[in-house]
């Protein structure tokens, strides 16, 4: 299934005085937990170890967030956060897979990382066409 990159605004600054926006691989996905599901836009992030979602998404799914196992993360800027992991199901393009995903209270976006996304799907980026093609593995 093919998805289009999404054009997202960014603030201009001295380093990039003429840049007003950037395209990002932000795609619609479905998360399921028991009988509940939530559809969200999530960023495909090949640099992320795992799939991380905001805790509000987990709460909407009916998950008791802090009952999950903890894992701490550190971004390349050094900021750290804690995620609580739960077994959910991820659905992309109609393909469903079990996914062990983390839920954070302070993440500003949802990230699809190596474990729980890249290991389940074949992802082909075509930046010049502004397209992402995702297939089931």
């Amino acid at each position, binding site marked *: 299934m093919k998805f289009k990159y999404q054009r997202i605004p960014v603030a201009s600054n001295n380093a990039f005085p003429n840049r007003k926006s950037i395209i990002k691989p932000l795609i619609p996905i479905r998360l399921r937990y028991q009988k509940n599901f939530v*559809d969200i836009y999530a960023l495909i992030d090949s640099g992320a170890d795992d799939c991380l979602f905001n805790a*509000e998404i987990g709460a909407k799914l009916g998950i008791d967030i802090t009952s999950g196992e903890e894992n701490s993360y550190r971004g390349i800027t050094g900021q750290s956060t804690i995620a609580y992991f739960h077994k959910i199901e991820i659905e992309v393009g109609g393909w469903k897979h079990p996914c062990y995903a983390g839920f954070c209270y302070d993440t500003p976006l949802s990230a699809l990382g190596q474990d729980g996304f890249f290991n389940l799907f074949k992802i082909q980026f075509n930046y010049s066409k502004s397209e992402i093609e995702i297939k089931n593995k």
Partner: protein
Amino acid sequence: MAQRLKLEKTYRDNLGKWVAVDSKQTKVMGVGKTLEEASQKAARKGEKHPIFLQVPSSLESIVL
């Protein structure tokens, strides 16, 4: 066929908020400070299963 919603404007208009987009991705159905608030507003407009977009609080560049 309705045109796909452009998230660029949606971002600019809703920094720091949750946005509920209709399932066909053509329009904003609800905005709130929380996902639940956006969900309830969308539900009142008849969209029970929107796609939720979490918009960061600023347009600063993001590196994860």
